[in-house]
């Protein structure tokens, strides 16, 4: 996975609270076996006039926001369904970083698996950043994962916190499955004692199915 270190880009804001993964990626587009090429479905019900008569006003459709790699949003971003399609679509569309007041637990975790950085900032900072994307859409934002800061125009550096293991994974672009597989001996030792303590949890393919 490509490491995430310092991102410099314009930003766009969709400043709603509780944006759910159905809004990010409607279920009808989930009939896929792919993780790529899904950006076309991102916010589909907002972006396309066949679903939304006011689609032209949707921030992602405004030409001054084209190419933005940072999305600014409100509270509880990505609530609802666990579908990682929402993150694959955000990623495929070009976003590498989401700045929000808060995230749903599942979407937050999904971001890291795809080399994307979710940044939590206090509401007043989110509001100020969102305002900047509207009044001065050409402003370059800098998201620095080493320093754990967001800077944009006169704003910042705004410091954010992040769990150390997640920061490490992103900075190094590590493959979590590979790292865990290297712990096979520890997993095996755990299994031995776990299934001795709770032998009813053992399942064999041949019984009871």
């Amino acid at each position, binding site marked *: 996975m490509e490491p995430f270190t310092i991102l410099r880009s314009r930003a766009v804001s969709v400043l709603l609270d509780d944006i759910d993964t159905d809004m990010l990626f409607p279920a009808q587009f989930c009939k896929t076996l792919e993780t790529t090429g899904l950006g076309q479905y991102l916010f589909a019900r907002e972006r396309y006039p066949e679903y939304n008569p006011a689609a032209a006003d949707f921030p992602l459709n405004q030409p001054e926001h084209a190419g933005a790699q940072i999305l600014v949003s409100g509270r*509880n971003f990505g609530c609802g369904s666990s579908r990682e399609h929402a993150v694959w679509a955000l990623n495929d569309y070009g976003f590498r970083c989401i700045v929000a007041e808060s995230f749903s637990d599942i979407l937050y975790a999904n971001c890291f698996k795809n080399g994307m950085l979710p940044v939590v900032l206090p509401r007043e900072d989110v509001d100020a950043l969102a305002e900047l994307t509207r009044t001065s859409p050409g402003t370059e934002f800098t998201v620095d994962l080493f320093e754990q800061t967001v800077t944009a125009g006169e704003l910042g550096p705004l410091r954010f916190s992040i769990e150390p*293991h997640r920061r490490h994974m992103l900075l190094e672009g590590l493959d979590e499955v590979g790292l*865990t597989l290297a712990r096979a001996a520890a997993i095996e030792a755990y299994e031995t004692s*776990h299934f001795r303590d709770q032998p*009813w949890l053992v*399942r064999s393919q041949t019984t009871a199915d």
Partner: protein
Amino acid sequence: MPRTLYEKIWESHVVEERPDGSALLYIDRHLAYEITSPQAFAALRTAGRTVRRPELTLAVADHGVPTLGCRSQPLTDPGSRMQVETLQANCAEFGITYIPVSDERQGIVHVIGPEQGFTLPGATIVCGDSHTSTHGAFGALAFGIGTSEVEHVLATQTLVQVRSKNLRVQIDGELPRGVAAKDLALAIMAKLGPHGATGHVVEYCGSTVESLSMEGRMTLCNMSIEAGARAGLVAPDETTFAWLKGRPMAPKGSHWDAAVKFWSTLRSDEGAHFDRTVAIDASSLAPWVTWGTRPSQGGGVTGRVPRPEDATSEADAAAISRALSYMNLEPGTPLTDIRIDRVFIGSCTNSRLEDLRAAAAVARKGRVADGVRAIVVPGSGLVRRAAEEEGLDRIFQQAGFEWRLPGCSMCVAVNGDQVEPGMRCASTSNRNFEGRQGPGARTHLMSPAMAAAAALAGRITDVRDYL
């Protein structure tokens, strides 16, 4: 030191703790279905990895499976057909137990897990679906994960996790007549809000919870994610053990006895620390219905659509305005004046035998109103058969409801069952998000009995008038 139920299950599943605060957590049970698993299997294949313990995963197709037609024929929708065939092929390749679409045990993943006894108290259970919280009704630590984590579980039987906080929802009092677990769940959502439990595992405690059936507890835990909770939990008790005993994949003989002895210790200790406690008086509740586009946006059926200006904050006022605009509702309208076009009784929230019995008890009192189309979708083939053995199918059909084959159906609307644009649906599912039941669809969440009453009345109505 006294521990919560969550802490007990967590601590007994830690493979190793890391200095950075994360932990490698062992996963006892994994459920897979056709929409969120194919990319995980593909990633395994690309990396040349295997499934560590195939017997700890159980797979079934549910989201895209049609509820009409013949189950022995291939699916007609090309996308769903491709996903179902891919799931079957992946399970065959990696040695995973797969319940075919034509099998009577097929059904919604969160219905069949418990039904087969795959779900067990004290276990860690995951699935690439947010409503995995359902299994917490058995005192299992159960939570939804993304597809990358599905791959991680398949390859390693573990997940890298950080510990959640503890939130206790203390519910006491007897549920009044006409008020079910769904009403309770919706009332709790209203109290917590759509993010009120984010970062927390919720334990539901109190006399009301203790007297709930397993079906009711599953409904309650199912909705936990709608408040953002990582998981919902109910301590296992005699009700749990009686429900599980004899299930095909549940332990047998001496294993059963040892398991029950252990499971009986799975409760929060006296004095255990909860980061927050929220109390609910169940005896004061009325049948509940949502008017908005968040499960938390609802109220008692005798109430009215709220006015944005009555909101406690500017953000809430904006959320109400947006919801009412989407729902095409006028502030101040009595909820019982809202006419409905469609009725959906089903989903992992409310598609079990007890739910169908509650709906049928109302359905037998009349006929589906003119202009209303009402469907009943059992949660599994076994639920469907049990309902038919009691004659529930005939009650529904005589009243004008359609009796369908099992699946997720109109809850997520990817199998061809959907609410048409602008139509209004009384639904027993879990989400009333914009477009959830189809583009432009308007959803009112409620209990199975309330949904059946709405079908007969052609509008939202107080089910207590039918009892």
